[in-house]
């Protein structure tokens, strides 16, 4: 099967004044249609940095990232923006809803960016709100809703343009246990509908829902694929065992 996203020998170094801070050094990564991949790694290992690179919000210092045949490093700001619009949906840890727009409007604002008719966008937004379970909150503002509701709205927003890939950076980081589980169930649901997903998380329990774990350390990736036909409790034990070998 052809990869949806290919990263080859990607390097990223931040400049802090004159000091160079190498974060990612020569990383390879492939993502296939319909996959659900979790990115793990200690704090500061560069997970967020990787996600921004994959989503075209940032440019690598070296190496190549291809999405659907297009090379990100060869695109200018505008082309990358158009690429994001068509292919990528972001979910952030801090929800990042526009505070002065209602939940529905928060979703519409992203949907109206495309060329789809506004009526179709509105219909899809309603469907997605129903899917994530916030259809009754359409006219509320973010400050009038709970964290879990806000994050579900953010997921709906990420899905509005029917992206090829959803990139989620610790989507459950700010949520409590119950809300966190609802969110992960939601991710399972959309994955079940064929959505390709990459999620950064710190929780092994959450990671077990994926098909594959990419572990970041020292600027590169080691991968762990869950063997088929293992019950969920067994999956967590396997993963923990694999992680502890790598100093988790």
């Amino acid at each position, binding site marked *: 099967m052809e990869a949806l996203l290919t990263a080859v020998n990607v390097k990223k170094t931040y400049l802090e004044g004159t000091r160079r801070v190498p974060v990612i050094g020569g990383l390879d990564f492939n993502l296939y249609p319909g996959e659900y991949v979790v990115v793990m790694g200690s704090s500061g290992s560069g997970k*967020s940095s990787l996600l*921004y690179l994959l*989503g075209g*919000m*940032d440019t690598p210092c070296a190496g190549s990232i291809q999405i659907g045949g297009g090379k990100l490093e060869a695109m200018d*700001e*505008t082309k990358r*923006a*158009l*690429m*994001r*619009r*068509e292919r*990528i*949906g*972001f979910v*952030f840890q*801090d929800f*990042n*809803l*526009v*505070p*002065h*727009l*209602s939940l529905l*409007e928060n979703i*519409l*604002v*992203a949907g*109206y*960016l495309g060329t789809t008719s*506004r009526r179709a966008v509105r219909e899809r937004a309603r469907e997605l709100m129903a899917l994530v379970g916030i259809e009754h909150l359409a*006219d509320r*503002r*973010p*400050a*009038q809703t709970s964290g879990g509701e806000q994050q579900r709205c953010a997921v709906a*927003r990420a899905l509005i*343009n029917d992206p090829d890939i959803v990139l989620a950076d610790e989507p459950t980081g700010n949520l409590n246990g119950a809300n966190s589980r609802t969110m992960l169930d939601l991710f399972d649901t959309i994955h079940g509908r064929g959505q390709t997903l990459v999620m950064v998380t710190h929780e092994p329990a959450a990671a077990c829902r994926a098909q594959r774990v990419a572990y970041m350390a020292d600027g590169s990736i080691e991968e762990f694929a869950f063997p088929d036909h293992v019950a969920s409790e067994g999956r967590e034990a396997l993963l923990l065992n694999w992680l502890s070998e790598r100093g988790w």
Partner: protein
Amino acid sequence: MKAIVFTALGDLRRRVGQTAALTCALLLSSLALFTAAALLQSLDAPLDDACDRLNTSALQLFLDGHSDDVPAMQAWLQQHEAVAAVGPPIPIYQTSSDLVHNEEAFSRALMLAENLPRKGLDAVQIVTRLGDPTAAAPGLDEVWISHQLATSRGIQLGDTITVPREGGPWPLRVSATVVDPYFSTDNISPTRAWVAPGALAHALPLADLNEVFLGVSLHQRADAGQVRDDLEQAFGGGLSGFALTHEIAKMAHGMFFRIMAVALGVAALLTLLVSILIVAGAVGSAVFADYRLIGTFKAMGYTPAMVNRIYLLRFTIPALIAVPLGLLLGWLVSAQLLALLVGSLGVTDPQWSPLLPALAAGAGVLTTVAAAAWWSARKAGRVEAMPAIRFGAPPPRAGSHRRSVPLGRLPLPAFLGARGLALNPVRAGFAVIGMGVAVAVLVCAVNLTATFERLGENRPMWGMAASDLTVFVGGARFSVRSEHFAARLRQDARVADFVTSGTVQGEIEGVKGIAGARTGGRVFDGAPETVGLTVLEGRHPEGAGEIALAINSALKGGYALGEPVPLFIEGQHLKPKLVGIYQTGQNLGLGFRLHAATMNAVLPMWQARTFEIKTAAGVDPAAFKDDLIRTYGEAVDVGLASDLTEQLAGLVTGIRGTLMLLSALLLAICLISIYNDTLLCLREQQQTLGILKAAGMTPGRLRLVLVWRTQVVTLVSLVLFLPMVLVALPLLLNQIAAGIGLVSFPLVIDPLGTVLIVPGLLAFAFAAAWWPARGVTRLHPRHMLAY
């Protein structure tokens, strides 16, 4: 306190662009304010000093020795309690046609005065001279001219100025330039020049030597006007010459600088207003953007007063940098301007103290900024820690959501721009007002420029005849009779129409101008309407016993249509009926118009000798003029309407320059204000913009979100202020110009120019916002939360 300074400085460093914008605005403001204050403060002193130094008499009378009893007046003045001393009568002669310098004619009227001893009164200060350095007066064929005339005309020592006179030209060699305080400006005409004692009697026919100058020194300069009036009263109300008082001289001397000072002062206040708007807006949005941070400070134990002080400091630091710089620049500019001002008075070192203007401008700007910052930062003190930390934004106001712009069919940038405005309505309001100031200044500039540029076409409203040529018939030696000339014109196909007129001096009971009770009037032999002249009310006189008054004469004397107007003219008292009131911008709106029949009743030989001619279509007035001169020679004196335009060119350039300077200053401030506003917006909305960027909005459209905002602001300002100013400007001008007689100010609205302000300003605002909006391309998800 340390914590506050630390926080404020940190904030300053982060927002370089915005700080620079504010610093520029405050710099311009203190520069303009200082210069205006310095000019106004130091405007009068140099002339006063020169007058003190030279013992210049506060009242200078120029009398007609034939009709005024000069010795009696002299005696009367000596008795007056306000008078300190009266100088001896000095013979003078006023030139009436063009002088020649270096074979080039120039049209400045000279008043030649014999340099007799004057008991120490009205001394002149020699600036440069030729020949014997001890000589007390010029030699027989020499002249001392004012330093100002020499510099403005480029006349050198040793040059010859030729004065026309009956018996052939009279050449005079310039042997010195002098300071003669009252005559050190273009704004007073004629300009006095000094010749040898006895030179006038030697060179001119006795019949021309009827005028004398009398210097009257007073204990108090301010009494000059009163003494002049008393004198007129005592001598039956008829002074035939004119009088110059210290007040008038002062006004004339500083006129240009006073206009400039007032314009600068207005500009300074407008700049200050915009600076206040910038500060208030910046504080408001800093508080908005720093919401979570403020909450965090509060949680850390900052008191409301401390939070308030952070912002106070943050915005007074740029002022502390900008104000001294602005004052320094203002000092340089003022020094240059004042050197120009006093140069004509022969003073090289204008003694002025920058202390008072500096204090006034500096304290003014600083306190204004501090007050604006403090006032708008009170909001920061009131931020509640809990919701601030939790939501990072002010809690939504109840119901505010309903009222805001719906996400309907608008393009996204427009919707978001409009939402941004609704988000911070106070700052949006400030932006609208700031832009409105620019709209107002531009509308005034465009239409006032048009008014003065087209003054030539609009002459009747200013009280001038709209003719193409003005011909005065009747030279002293060869002359053509009026009626013959008129008969010829009537047969001439090149003439479309004409009217004859003449000028007279008369006194109207209860009406007095600055130069005395005499007012210049115009007598028409025909309909003034021929050359476009109109009345505001009633009609023009059509026969004997009728008079039309200029509006200020009618108002001062309290005359209404139909009432008799006591008029003293050519030694006779008349009572013509007031039939019309007209407006004129000449002579402060004083004057009268009569019909020739009235004059002929008084002086049967009187003739109107000025012909106002309108040429037929396709006739070149200049060629017609040449032809008239070829035919009639010295018997006619021909002026072209285009000469007037030329004479006015200087005035028009000056006014246009001042208006352009004012507009440029305002546009600069506007640019700064838009730049600042856009940066603030970028900061306020960085989360929204970051999200949209992640969702795939292109950089161009992201920038449009910010640009749209200023477009809306500009459009609202235009819609609100443009019609308002267009309505208010004529009313305002009528009020202001009523003092000089233009109750219905001949404002020319330039429709094209005014309409062009709309796209012009929109394009300007677009460009001004587009540049700072580039910041959106650098947004990154890591910036999405302000902190």
